[in-house]
């Protein structure tokens, strides 16, 4: 079966519908599926629920889907870098479900692993616990969180082989593997599709069983906070 598609629009063909839930990889602007996000913007799919750690910045990443009002609800842990997000949220145009970062990652992992719910100590005694089942294990309180199963996962990896085996690079891995596993369909964009057999099977980060469609493309890979130190003459 061929998993390789010519571009993002072709890879998403037939998968998008209004009101759908999308799980996206990425942390800040690092490791975001920028080509697939742009294609969803161009497709104009509406009333999206998007589970993603962050919401991009104004004009880039998921920020693009906010500008076009395609997003109905975000499930995120931190949205501080996006002024348009703030504006839509504070004016009541956009729903927001804050999830602690580790809870969001585990909800995706659980959803993809056939685990409908799990108990965690994260958020006990806070607004996050409101309305959630509480259970005591060994004298400590835990709250029930549910697994996320998305209609579509959008993911960015570094390299893939034609069978969909993925390798990520440095901290661009972040939410991509858990997001990939929790979608009914998973579409992945990579910087390079390499020939079958050229990835060492022992070094594959995510096996191709989770990957349904694959594209290769050029990535902008924008840097959010460029921090450096000066080269010193004498060390």
């Amino acid at each position: 079966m061929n998993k390789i598609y010519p571009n993002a629009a072709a890879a998403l063909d037939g998968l998008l519908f209004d009101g759908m839930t999308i799980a996206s990889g990425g942390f800040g602007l690092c490791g975001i599926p920028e080509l697939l996000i742009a294609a969803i913007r161009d497709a104009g799919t509406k009333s999206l629920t998007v589970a993603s750690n962050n919401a991009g910045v104004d004009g880039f990443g998921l920020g693009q889907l906010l500008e076009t009002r395609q997003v109905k609800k975000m499930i995120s842990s931190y949205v501080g870098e996006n002024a348009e997000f703030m504006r839509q949220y504070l004016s009541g145009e956009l729903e927001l479900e804050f999830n602690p970062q580790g809870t969001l990652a585990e909800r995706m992992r659980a959803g993809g692993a056939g685990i409908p719910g799990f108990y965690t100590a994260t958020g006990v005694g806070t607004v996050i616990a409101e309305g959630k089942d509480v259970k005591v294990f060994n004298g400590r309180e835990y709250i029930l969180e549910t697994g996320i199963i998305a209609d579509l996962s959008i993911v960015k990896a570094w390299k893939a082989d034609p069978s969909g085996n993925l390798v990520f690079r440095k901290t661009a891995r972040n939410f991509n593997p858990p997001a990939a596993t929790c979608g009914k369909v998973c579409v992945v964009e990579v910087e390079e599709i390499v020939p079958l057999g050229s990835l060492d099977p022992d070094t594959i980060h995510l096996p191709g069983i989770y990957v349904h469609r694959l594209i290769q493309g050029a990535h902008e890979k924008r840097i959010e906070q460029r921090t450096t130190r000066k080269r010193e003459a004498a060390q």
Partner: protein
Amino acid sequence: MWDRNQMAARAAQELQDGWYVNLGIGIPTLVVNYIPEGVNVTLQSENGMLGMGPFPFEGDEDADLINAGKQTITELPQTAYFDSAQSFAMIRGGKIAMAILGAMEVSETGDLANWMIPGKLVKGMGGAMDLVAGVGRVVVVMDHTNKAGESKVLKACTLPLTGKRVVNRIISNMGVLDVVEGGLRIVQLADGVTEAELRAATEATIVG
């Protein structure tokens, strides 16, 4: 009174050789500049990295290599990368010895508020709720009072909580306090601060 760097230097004295540690955004980030000689700690960045190195030299920035504050960083010989689910598995699983975090408010029972001001600041908790629930020891670094001079070390927090009964030690610009049975215990006074001044700036109960 201690300034930001003096607070960071004091917080660095909390670190022990061999520990895995998570440093929050803001003053906690400065702690790395004051790690004592001979103390080898491995820094965890919750976006998926153990062994966080310093900022890159100009021109060496890599968009694929950032810390949890989205700043470009570098790797070290012992660096390991992993996904967000595994990152928080090690946090929740108690593998991280200590987190040093900023605080908006702390209570005498160790409640922490550092993620939200209703109607004003709605950025999100990021990984802070997971960290305070999972790491071995939580140290907060903060200003003792707000700009109006009102105590931020309270009997009970007024802002939405990040965690309940989670803080072990407070390092403020006025000194060091531990959360103990019945309230807070003064461990150390900052340079030039008297015990009477610290008590006056603290709304929380001070015991002993």
